[in-house]
C-alpha cells in the first residue's frame, strides 16, 4: 500500500511573489518617510490633527517593515507584519470615519487605498508562505483506504464495549441514554 518516493522539486516561492515583496518593501520605505516627515500636513489634510504623532509612529513602523522586507533573506514574516500594520491603519481610519472633525471624504479615500494595499499584502504573503494551492495538483483518490475490515456502516459502534473513564465522561445534559434513573429529576426526553 505504501510506495517509495523520491522527487526533487523545490517549493521556492514564485519569482513574481518575490518581486512583489521587494516592491512592497520600497513602498513601505517611501510611505514611511512620507508619514514621518510629512506627518503634520498629512494630519491636516485628513482633518486628524490630534493624530499627528500617531502618524509619525506609523511612519517609523513602515520604515522598519520596509527595511525588514528588503534586508532579510525570508521576507514573508515582514510582509505579514505589513498586514498587521494595515489592520492598525484601517482601525485608525475607521475611527476617523466616525469623527465629525475629520475630512471624512478624504479619510474614505485613504481607507480605500489602505484596503487595496492590504489585498496586495495578503496575496503576496500567502504566495511567499507557500499557501497558494499548487497549480498542477493531481488529486489522489483514497476512497479505498478505510482501515476497517467491513464497510463503515457495519463498523459503527464496534468499540462500544469500551468504557469511557470517569474523568472523560460528558455532562449529563448530553446523555440521552444510560442516565441513572432518579425520582427527583425530570426524565430525559429521548
Amino acid at each position: 500500500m505504501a510506495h517509495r518516493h523520491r522527487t526533487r522539486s523545490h517549493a521556492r516561492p514564485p519569482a513574481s511573489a518575490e518581486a512583489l515583496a521587494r516592491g512592497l518593501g520600497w513602498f513601505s520605505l517611501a510611505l514611511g518617510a512620507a508619514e514621518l516627515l510629512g506627518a503634520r500636513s498629512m494630519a491636516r489634510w485628513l482633518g486628524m490633527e490630534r493624530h499627528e504623532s500617531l502618524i509619525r509612529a506609523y511612519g517609523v513602523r513602515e520604515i522598519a517593515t520596509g527595511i525588514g522586507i528588503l534586508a532579510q533573506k525570508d521576507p514573508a514574516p515582514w510582509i505579514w507584519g505589513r498586514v498587521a500594520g494595515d489592520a492598525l491603519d484601517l482601525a485608525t481610519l475607521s475611527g476617523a470615519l466616525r469623527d465629525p472633525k475629520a475630512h471624512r471624504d478624504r479619510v474614505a479615500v485613504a481607507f480605500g487605498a489602505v484596503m487595496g494595499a492590504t489585498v496586495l499584502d495578503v496575496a503576496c504573503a500567502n504566495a511567499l508562505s507557500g499557501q497558494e494551492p499548487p497549480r498542477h495538483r493531481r488529486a489522489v483518490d483514497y476512497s479505498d483506504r478505510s482501515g476497517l475490515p467491513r464497510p463503515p456502516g457495519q463498523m459503527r459502534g464496534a468499540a462500544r464495549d469500551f468504557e469511557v473513564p470517569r474523568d472523560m465522561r460528558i455532562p449529563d445534559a448530553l446523555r440521552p441514554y444510560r442516565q441513572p434513573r432518579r425520582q427527583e429529576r425530570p426524565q430525559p426526553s429521548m
Partner: protein
Amino acid sequence: MKALRWYGKGDIRCEQVPDPGIEDPRDAIIKVTSCAICGSDLHLYNHFMPGMQKGDILGHETMGEVVEVGSAVRNLKVGDRVVIPFTIICGECDQCRRGNYSVCERSNRNAHLAAKAFGHTTAGLFGYTHLTGGYAGGQAEYLRVPYADATHVKVPDGIPDEKLLFLSDIFPTGWQAAVQCDIEPTDTVAIWGAGPVGQMAIRSALLLGARQVVAIDRIPERLSMARAGGAIAINFEEESVIERLNELTAGRGPEKCIDAVGMEAHVSMAHPDTILDRAKQAVMLETDRPHVLREMIYVCRPAGVLSVPGVYGGLLDKIPFGAVMNKGLTIRTGQTHVNRWTDDLLRRIQEGQIDPSFVITHTAGLEDGPQMYETFRDKKDGCVKVVLKPQ
C-alpha cells in the same frame, strides 16, 4: 548513526551523530525499525514552537527492537519489540498514578522551563523542544528511551511495523480525542482537520458509535480518505462549514467537536480572522492561529463538548469565551495519555477491528527525511502520512 536534525525554519538535515548510550539505570536503547513524521513536527519545521536548538534530533513516533537495557529495567530484554510513546513517563509520580501520563511530573528534565511557560511542568517528550526536556527524538537509527521500564509498549512479533507504529501517537491521540467526547449513539461528531490524527479520530468516533461523523478539510485526497472511514466530508474552501453543520444537525449544531488542526490553521481569504492571526503572529502579538477553536465554539451545540488534540503553543487572541460560558461548553484538551489506551488499542488491532496503516501514503529511507518533511508540509503528491525506515 544517522539522524534527522533541526537547524531552523524549513531546515532539516540527515546527519551523522554519535550513537546514544545508557545514561541512567532505567534507560533502554532501541534500534529503530520504523518512525514517522507527525503533524506536530511541522510546527517545529515551520518554527512556530519556541525552545528548539540547532542540531536537535527530531521525531516522536518510533518503534524498534531493544538492543541495550539499563540495570534497573526488569521488564525489557534485548530483542524485545517495542513501540515508544511520544510521552516519557516515570510511572510513579502522582499524575502517572492517576493515568495522566502526558503531565508526568518527573520525566521532563527541564521542568523549570516548562513551569515558567505553563505554570507547572508537563511530561518530557521525545524530539520536541527543550521545554519538554530536550530529549533526542526517534527519527534516527537508534533511540535512547529514558524511564524505559514505564514508557515502552511491548508488541508481539508477527504483525508488521506499519500496523503498530501509530500506537506511539496518532492512533491513541485520535482515540483519546473521541473518547473524551464520550460519544452517544445520537451524536454528531464534527472533526476539523483530516490529517493523520483527524483520520484516526474519524474512525475512533465511528467505532465508538457516533451517529454521524463529519470531517472538515480542504485537501481533496484527505477528504476522500475521510469518506472511506465513514465521514461526511466538508471542503471549507467550497462551502460554509457553519451552514453545512447546521444543515446536518437540523440547526442544533454538533454535540461534539474535535480540533485536530491546532495552532497553524490554514490562512485563507474566506476566513479574515486567519489573515489577522497570521499577521499578529508575524509581529508577535499572538503565537497561535485559533480559527478552528473560534468556529467550534460558535457552531457547537449548547452544553456540548470541545475536544482539542491539536497542538497549541502559547497565546491566542479573540477567543469568544462569552459563547463558551453562555453555551455551557465543556472543553477537554491535552497531550495524549498514550499508555492509558495502548493495551486496549493493541487488542483492537490484533482482533482486526482497525488497521491504522491505512493512513500511510509515503515510505522512504531516513536520508530522504528532509525531502519528506517538505512533501508532507506542502501536501504534495497526495501525502497524508510518511513513514521512514532508518535501516
